[in-house]
């Protein structure tokens, strides 16, 4: 009853890779929730929280990106998942970096662009993690 998938990609993320990848999501999500709180209350501390959470998200995302790049180089079949995973992470990182600069602006100058970018970046991080970790699960079934 073993599943014989068409062998496109069978890499199992290492624990460190998995931790960094999965950790990216709550960091960017925390940034988004903090942005929403600032948007609703004008309380500046929420905006400070958002700045640091996004910086943390970028750190995790950037390291994950290195893992993804190594995987991509080492993959036998680069088309499909390996490249999709890498490109998604890359876009997440670049938009996240723009979002970090956006959050470096003073007070309400962060709004509304910072909030919109946080929504997009969180969504992208979620999808990238989903794709990246799906392989972890299929790897378990071997």
């Amino acid at each position, binding site marked *: 009853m073993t599943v014989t998938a068409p062998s496109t990609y069978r890499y199992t993320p290492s624990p460190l890779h998995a931790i960094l990848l999965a950790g990216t999501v709550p960091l960017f999500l925390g940034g988004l929730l903090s942005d929403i709180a600032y948007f609703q209350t*004008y*309380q*500046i*501390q929420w*905006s*400070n929280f958002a*700045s*640091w959470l996004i*910086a943390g998200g970028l750190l995790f995302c950037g390291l994950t990106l290195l893992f993804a790049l190594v995987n991509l180089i080492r993959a036998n079949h680069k088309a499909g998942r390996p490249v999709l995973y890498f490109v998604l992470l890359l876009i997440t990182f670049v938009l996240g970096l*723009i979002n*970090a*600069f*956006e*959050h*470096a*602006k*003073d*007070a*309400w*100058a962060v709004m509304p662009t910072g909030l919109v970018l946080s929504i997009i970046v969180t969504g992208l991080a979620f999808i990238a993690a989903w794709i990246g970790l799906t392989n972890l699960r299929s790897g378990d079934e071997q």
Partner: protein
Amino acid sequence: MRHSSALTVLSMSLMLSACGGDGESTQARGADPKLPEPEHTLVPSMKIAEPVAWGEQKPTVPEGYSITAIATDLKIPRQTLVLPNGDILIAEGRGGSAAKLKPKDVIASVIKAQGNTQVKGGNRLTLLRDADGDGNYEVKTVFAENLNAPYGLAFADGKLYVANQDALVRFDYEEGQTKASGAPTKVTDLPSAINHHWTKSLTVSPDGRYLYVGIGSNSNVTERGMEVEVDRAMVWQIDAATGAHKPYATGLRNPTALTIQPETGQLWTVVNERDELGPDLVPDYLSSVKEGGFYGWPYSYWGQNVDTRAQPQNPDKVASAIKPDYSLGSHVAALGVDFSEPSMGEKFANGVFIGEHGSWNRPNPVGYKVIFVPFSNGKPAGEPIDFATGFRGADGKTRGRPVGVTVDPRGALIIADDLANTVWRVTRNQ
């Protein structure tokens, strides 16, 4: 063909530089500056000073004037005071304890520190004396120490007032003293939590009854929250006898120097306005200070130009905001102001000298000089005149940054330079 394309490139680059508002000539100065639309670029334009030593060089002064360094190796000189006997007091120090709240604060503090001196602030007053009047200040001695980032200085009725970053204090002074006779007496505490803008500027009313202290805002534009702006961005009037205080004027983002107009007794200030709205916003200004007046910060600038970064907004306050008297140009960072005297020479007899520390938030730096704003009928009139330049050289290196300027009634301008840790003296040639 090649010729015309070269011309095109030239004209395009000229247009570009005009668009960028790079040259100082495009900076709106005077009573009615033209303000561009605010810019919200992803990264603010920056050009940080690259310090080098003066060496054999000196600042450039107008023909018929000379400049000399009368004290060097100071510990961050900020403001100076000329005592009745001609002795000069220098406040030395560096204050501020603002926490770094965002990743940006960590990065920006490292970048901006490159443009400042590495010397530790002296927290003291140094006294200079030229006993024989030959222009050589042969005595240089510590008048008082263990102060807390002293900045503003004032003298009246035998009392020497010093505005530390956290309190206004007073020394009893007898003519000829070279050392304070004891620890100072506290007149009143000053707002000092965070101290994002820590400098406390100071002047005294001609009768010695009231002291005026300038207190800067605790942020660029409320990015540390509105709660920390209580008692900030305003000028206090303090009763010299009792220490009782009241806000005299508000909405002044960072009133870095105060002075009294001799013939009218009117209070004047120079104010550093907000950053990160583009290279040509917001103009720093020179203005008379109206009692009870509100000057815009943080809700608006130059009258009713709303700054959307301060939320929630306050349309009533915006409506009440007073337009300042005279724009000095954006980001020049005016840190010193003093009214002139006829002894400074005919061309510079009527008006104010202003020390400009120089910009960071601009691709083409401005400031880094001492200017003279001529007055007529008690009001600023006409274009500012460069008085001391060359602090930022043509080679792009910065040798000094002017802070306090003080007119010595005997016919000299004293300039504190907090990058070179030097005090300069400009005199007319005999």
